[in-house]
């Protein structure tokens, strides 16, 4: 038999039919739904008098618009209507939903894995580009548009084409102070935001095997920022340990059968990828983005690059535009950039491990006086409860952070958590696009411990100077 990549195994096991031009009907096992990209899909079903194909495949939650303060009713009527529309649709179609107020509610990409609703060997879709997160479980997980959400609701399939395969191998031990977030940014800095376009990325190598599931999720989450619709990691003991006992995970004899199958979910020896990229993790340092694209990234001890040195016209103009938007000068030291707000959260970095890592830095320290607001937004109600049991909330609050309720929050500012024009943020989220966190806001992407260190210093600083 020909050796197969993990992606090819997942693809083959889900093809219902394939047309001669390569368009395939791919069966979808898990459909995650949130309030922003689903209302028009449900409406489309009703207009066409169509029903749901398989309701038990769906898990829904409200996350983008939900307030992170103690507010139980959303003040903005437009946001409120969107959340209520999701509640109505879930009631009407009998869909399991963790609504606002449910202690399991949270960011859709945090709660899926937390519930064991994301399992190895599954196809997972959601009307959200960061669905790539779930690939950490050796699932084929892809973000889709609203028309595709409707297509999956009505047919349980996705019309799609096979992607090319790309292996990103990261070898070596992660140096202290360097995290999965830095690995993700290093990869994007290396291959660019279009480097993975048309490809499904498999992350492999000893560094990846050494990551926790949380770290693998952070990495796969940002596959989309490298242009790849899907990112994935093979199953190993870490995967299986994480899943055991989760509410949706198989139990008893089914668990044994599932584990036996899941153990086959890795790329075969000798398989060829369309593209291979190799990184040595020992050379990765804590990173900070300086521009308006995640590929515009530099080491914390480095300087803002000089566009004058860029030979390509379009790229140079892009760098100049980014520096104007970010209000930065070429060759300025990254550690001289002062910050207004801190955001620790998002589907990239809001899990327990992320909060613990930030708390280690903040314990016994205080947020610098120039920081107007430091927010920590746990990824789910369960993450919040677990963090409180460990006393992490007390460490954050003592340092001067606000300890909030779960949701997408200031990653994209669809609720009240936003940057004002001109404000600069050290953010653990995934996108530093113009206006992403609020019109005119300036985002620098970093790891949770780097965000915590920046909060204490009031400017970017090498987190390694905080470690013993």
């Amino acid at each position, binding site marked *: 038999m020909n050796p197969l990549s993990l992606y090819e195994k997942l693809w083959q096991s889900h093809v219902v*039919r394939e047309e001669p031009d390569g*368009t395939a*009907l791919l069966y979808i096992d898990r459909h995650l739904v949130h309030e922003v990209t689903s209302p*028009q899909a449900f409406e489309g079903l009703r207009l066409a008098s169509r029903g749901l194909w398989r309701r038990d495949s769906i898990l829904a939650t409200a996350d983008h618009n939900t307030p992170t303060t103690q507010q139980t009713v959303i003040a903005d009527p*437009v946001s409120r209507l969107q959340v209520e529309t999701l509640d109505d649709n879930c009631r009407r179609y009998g869909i399991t939903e963790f609504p606002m107020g449910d202690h399991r509610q949270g960011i859709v990409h945090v709660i899926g894995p937390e519930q064991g609703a994301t399992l190895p060997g599954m196809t997972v879709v959601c009307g959200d580009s960061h669905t790539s997160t779930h690939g950490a479980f050796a699932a084929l997980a892809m973000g889709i*548009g609203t028309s595709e959400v409707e297509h999956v609701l009505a*047919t349980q399939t996705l019309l799609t084409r096979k992607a090319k395969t790309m292996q990103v191998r990261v070898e070596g031990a992660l140096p202290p102070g360097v995290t999965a977030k830095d690995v993700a940014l290093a990869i994007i800095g290396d291959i660019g935001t279009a480097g993975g376009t048309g490809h499904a990325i498999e992350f492999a190598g000893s560094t990846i095997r050494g990551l926790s599931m949380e770290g693998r999720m952070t990495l796969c989450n940002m596959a989309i920022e490298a242009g790849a619709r899907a990112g994935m990691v093979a199953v190993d003991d870490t995967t299986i340990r994480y899943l055991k006992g989760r509410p949706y995970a198989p139990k008893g004899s089914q668990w044994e059968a599932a584990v036996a199958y899941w153990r086959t979910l890795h790329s075969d020896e000798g398989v060829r990828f369309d593209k291979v990229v190799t990184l040595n993790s020992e050379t990765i340092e804590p990173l900070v983005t300086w521009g308006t694209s995640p590929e515009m990234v530099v080491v914390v001890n480095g300087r803002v690059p000089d566009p004058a040195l860029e030979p390509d016209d379009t790229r140079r103009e*892009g760098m100049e535009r980014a520096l104007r938007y970010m209000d930065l000068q070429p060759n300025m030291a990254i550690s001289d950039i002062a910050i207004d707000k801190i955001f620790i959260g998002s589907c990239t970095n809001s899990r327990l491990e992320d909060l613990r890592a930030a708390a280690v830095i903040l314990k016994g320290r205080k947020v610098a006086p120039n920081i107007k607001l430091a927010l920590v937004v746990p990824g789910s109600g369960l993450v919040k409860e677990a963090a409180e049991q460990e006393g992490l909330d007390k460490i954050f609050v003592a340092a001067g952070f606000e300890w909030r309720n779960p949701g997408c929050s200031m990653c994209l500012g669809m609720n009240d958590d936003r940057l004002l024009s001109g404000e600069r943020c050290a953010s653990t989220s995934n*996108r530093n696009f113009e206006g992403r966190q609020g019109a005119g806001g300036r985002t620098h992407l970093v790891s949770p411990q780097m965000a915590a260190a920046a909060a204490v210093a009031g400017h970017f600083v090498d987190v390694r100077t905080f470690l013993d």
Partner: protein
Amino acid sequence: MKQFTSLNGLVVPLDRSNVDTDAIIPKQFLKSIQRTGFGPNLFDAWRYLDEGQPGRDNAQRPLNPDFVLNQDRYQGAQILLARENFGCGSSREHAPWALDDYGICALIASSFADIFYNNCFKNGLLPIVLPAPVIDQLFQSVANQPGYRLAIDLVAQTVKTPEGAEYGFSVNEFHKYCLLNGLDEIGLTLRHADEIRAYETRRAQSEPWIFGVSA
């Protein structure tokens, strides 16, 4: 879905690479539960000098005179000329909805992000990939010739310039068929409902833990 067969349209150039869907339609407009009405807020942060909010009268807002969509010569444009990795970032289908609502029918770029590219076809928009040197040439032509139009023929898969140059482009057969006929993909897929059910039966035997489980 609306059909697309051919188009002879005015071209508007957006000379930036990595244009993300947050720029195409900012987050505050994603709170709508409708599919229409996004056109006035297309490229909102670049197009207006103030900050847009849902429900505001866009006709009363100050326009950014430097932004291409606000220049007289590009009014009524139906073809958007762009650079590499257009439509990257968020999967929001509000981006093609906004382009469509504004009046854009086709996009030409050296590359598109995957999710955006797919979303275009679901809404009767045709995204065309041409080589970077051709894109460079087209940007120059548009800049030098007010009223510059291109003729797109989906059947022949060609883009023709007023100077007489002709560029072929590729599009997969299924997308082409759906666009030419304005077909609803869900209806097409449901013709294979029996195959989907047969597949489900097989999977329910080999991986029973996938089915019928809830928390």
